[in-house]
């Protein structure tokens, strides 16, 4: 009798467990982390515009992830350093007026995008009459609205914002002020010596040659460098590297990059300056003797040309050291061998 009761209890527990398992599988849903993925194009607009004129720019924002609530705004920015990074200001300033021409959308107004849906933002940019000539830099920012009330536990919520830069040159006549200056054009040598006040750069023949070119824009309008860097050796060898025409904003400096550039393996060279900060160009090869590097830069038609040069020596220091070590060992072994004889 007791045995039957026990069997009945076990069966009851088993059935209950089975039903609860079924309930779990049918009533629970797979939960995935909420993602956000946005694209915005075009990433950069440059315009030269007269006071009193307006233009319309069509941006496309695409949502590739979960449905999201977005809003668009425009804020001014300034260059943060000479590496092309920016600092977006917290408050709007400047004379340029921005608005959206979309019938159903305004700046700072929320809109909804489903998965894989896109929206065209028609940004109207208007320069009022009497606006001061000069450059004005802005970023169109499209940002997500975080949903903060879903979790019942401690959490941080990520908000994603994506930007596109707008560079505006306001001018009545169409003339651009071009006032460039090369502030730095030098190699980052392995060894540097001073000889009668002159700095002499030394590399090992097998070293890669890192080079820095920084240009300052002292004018009130952005400029775009065009030019090349030329390497000439003492045996008549020559190599040319083209400057990449990156914008240099007014009253700022920029490290200008050149191409084609090599790469340095920094895994064992973390203290080497070229591994700690970006450089304009890295030249690889086998160098021997004296080399001169020169650059000449222009900034569009009829602009002044600026130039600079630097030089370095390269010798096979590693190979020479190895040869000396090998000869010393050889000499020692021969001497020992003859002493034995």
């Amino acid at each position, binding site marked *: 009798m007791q045995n039957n009761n026990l069997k009945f209890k076990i069966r009851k527990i088993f059935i209950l467990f089975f039903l609860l398992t079924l309930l779990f599988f049918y009533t629970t849903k797979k939960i995935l982390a909420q*993602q956000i993925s946005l694209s915005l194009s075009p990433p950069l607009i440059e315009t030269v515009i007269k006071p009193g004129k307006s233009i319309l720019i069509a941006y496309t924002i695409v949502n590739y992830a979960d449905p999201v609530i977005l809003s668009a705004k425009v804020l001014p920015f300034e260059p943060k350093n000479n590496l092309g*990074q920016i600092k977006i200001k917290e408050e709007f300033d400047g004379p340029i007026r921005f608005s959206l021409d979309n019938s159903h959308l305004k700046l700072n107004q929320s809109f909804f995008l489903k998965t894989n849906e896109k929206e065209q933002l028609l940004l109207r940019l208007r320069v009022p009459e009497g606006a001061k000539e000069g450059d004005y830099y802005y970023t169109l920012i499209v940002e997500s609205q975080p949903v903060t009330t879903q979790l019942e*536990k*401690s959490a*941080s*919520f990520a*908000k994603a914002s994506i930007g596109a*830069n707008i560079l505006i040159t306001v001018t009545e006549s169409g003339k651009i002020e071009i006032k460039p200056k090369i502030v730095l054009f030098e190699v980052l040598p392995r060894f540097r010596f001073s000889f009668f006040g002159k700095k002499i750069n030394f590399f090992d023949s097998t070293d890669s040659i890192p080079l820095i070119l920084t240009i300052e824009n002292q004018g009130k309008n952005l400029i775009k460098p065009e030019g090349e860097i030329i390497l000439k050796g003492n045996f008549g060898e020559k190599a040319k590297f083209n400057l990449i025409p990156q914008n240099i904003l007014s009253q700022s400096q920029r490290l200008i990059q050149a191409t084609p550039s090599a*790469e340095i393996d920094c895994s064992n060279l973390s203290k080497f300056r070229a591994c700690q900060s970006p450089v304009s160009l890295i030249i690889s090869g086998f160098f021997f003797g004296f080399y001169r590097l020169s650059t000449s830069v222009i900034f569009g038609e009829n602009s002044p040309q600026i130039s600079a040069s630097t030089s370095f020596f390269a010798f096979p220091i590693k190979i020479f050291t190895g040869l000396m070590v090998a000869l010393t060992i050889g000499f020692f*072994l021969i001497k020992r061998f003859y002493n034995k004889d």
Partner: protein
Amino acid sequence: MKKAIFLLIFSLSFLFFFLKSVFAINMESPLFKIQYGEIGIAGGNKSSANYSLSDTVGQTAAGQFNSTGYIVKAGFQYLHSIIPFRFSISNININFGILIPNSPQTATTTLTVSFGAAGQYQVTAIEEGRLRTLDEVNSIPDTQCDGGTNTCNESLARPWTSNTAYGFGYNMSGNDIPSDFIDSTYFRPFPNRQENESPAIVMSSANVGRNRQAVVTFKVNVSPIQPAGKYQTIINFVATPSF
């Protein structure tokens, strides 16, 4: 004599150990892929069924400027980017669960930036305020890491391994991250917008990059006297291309 020559050859052969492979000047650029010499305004789609953007092509031309009053160039002049600038966050709800004193909690999310050939970009991060209760009475301070010589700040990551060092901070690993995140024990506090701090750059690159990924590890550790409650904040990640 033969033995001497043999020894000399043997010792000279040591030289080979000092030799490196030597290549001609590399003609490929890891920095930029030039697809178009100059695209002027022609880059990018600027028309729709109802709207079109009146553009001029090329460099500043005084005559054209005087007649229309403007010149526009879209995209980067030195390249044509087929892939638009795209920014993704793998998880926007970073759940710490129940916070237990002296028991650090971590959670991660992955940031991804795709930029075709356009290269230069940056991602910044800032917290909209400290981790705090909904009534804003209690808050968890931003971390100072282990303190002493290992005191971190918004622009310098330092080790945070002590269970008695309290606060909220983050670690970065992956592509294009600041070099001060040496390993997974190095943390920084987020800059705080309410304290007028500037956003910190958490990813940046001057090179060509498609699907550049970095993992943000959020860490919070509370003291035994931290009042109970649900602590929350918003971290704003802003991705922008260069100019």
